[in-house]
């Protein structure tokens, strides 16, 4: 990227070229940083594929659902309900409930994006628990270019730093690929899975959440406290409520508690 540093007098075409390179750089970075998500999705999707076949769906239906829906919790629940003989309307309603948490996440995520409706429509499809957190907490060094898409804007008296859409697209794309490939593998190898395969791979997603949380929590009691409260509340609520509701409520309450207690400014935000 060094050769693009000084473009102040460059002709328009070269500048356009450089902007395209920059987009590509961010997209590639997104692909790389999203790789752990894809690795974590693969076994989960594989398990979904196996369960869906067992519930009586065809391989084509199973994969089509992964392509169209792209939501782990929602798909597992749908397959569970389906094998219990639930009607389509019940499955759709249950999915809406489980997916309400995306509403909260996307509302938060929108603070870090400055995109047009088409970009929003494409990026929105790829919002999952994992891609949301990874994107939101992305720590991007700017490539050595002027006019970076990481623009800054005042919101109230705080500053928001925007994410480049191509980075987000990179993270989402590779995660989506991992999810679909995993589903495909699940439909292929449904009968020939090594036992105990799941647990080792299953920890990957959680290890990723932890690795995302630790640096932020280490720098701020507020962030650590909010995360701990979120976990404790979610565990408590999930004893009484389905996971989707428990998570929406826990996230809402823990973040609200954080605002009330450390409202004047949580360190590191």
């Amino acid at each position: 990227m060094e050769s693009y540093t000084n473009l102040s007098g460059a002709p328009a075409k070269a500048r356009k070229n450089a902007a395209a390179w920059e987009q590509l750089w961010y997209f590639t970075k997104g692909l790389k940083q999203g790789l752990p998500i894809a690795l974590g999705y693969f076994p989960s999707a594989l398990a979904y594929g196996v369960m869906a076949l067992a519930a009586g769906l065809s391989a084509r239906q199973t994969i089509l659902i992964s392509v169209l829906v792209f939501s782990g919790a929602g798909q597992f629940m749908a397959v569970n309900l389906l094998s219990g003989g639930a009607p389509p309307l019940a499955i759709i309603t249950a999915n809406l409930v489980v997916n309400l948490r995306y509403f909260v996440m996307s509302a938060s995520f929108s603070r870090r994006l400055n995109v047009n409706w088409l970009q929003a429509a494409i990026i929105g499809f790829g919002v999952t628990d994992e891609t949301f957190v990874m994107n939101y907490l992305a720590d991007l060094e700017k490539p050595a270019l002027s006019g970076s898409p990481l623009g800054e804007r005042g919101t109230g008296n705080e500053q928001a730093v925007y994410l480049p859409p191509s980075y987000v697209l990179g993270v989402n794309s590779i995660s989506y690929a991992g999810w679909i490939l995993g589903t495909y593998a699940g439909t292929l190898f449904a009968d020939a899975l090594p036992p105990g395969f799941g647990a080792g791979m299953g920890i990957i997603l959680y290890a990723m959440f932890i690795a995302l949380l630790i640096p932020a929590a280490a720098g701020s009691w507020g962030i650590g406290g909010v995360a701990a409260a979120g976990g404790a509340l979610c565990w408590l609520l999930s004893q009484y409520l389905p996971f989707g509701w428990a998570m929406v409520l826990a996230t809402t309450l823990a973040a609200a508690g954080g605002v009330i207690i450390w409202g004047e400014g949580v360190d590191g935000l």
Partner: protein
Amino acid sequence: MGMAFVTYLPRTLPLLLGSEVRLPLWLERWLKLVPYAALGALIFPGILTVDPNRPWIGILGGIAAAAAAWKWKNFVIALAAAFLVVYILS
């Protein structure tokens, strides 16, 4: 197909509306804390289900990930540490 719709809608609607709207300060602050609260809620009850019959395996894996992330500040090492611990134990 209804499922695809009810998944897509809540994901995208706030993104379509959100970036234009100016919000009161307390709401901005709340939205900034949401990811951390969500991380906590995603980690905690879920990690017990890594091996549903032996929840402590998930916890040990999580501790390994946290320790590695703390010490080396490196993503890949943290994932590898957690994977190894869980793989060896199960």
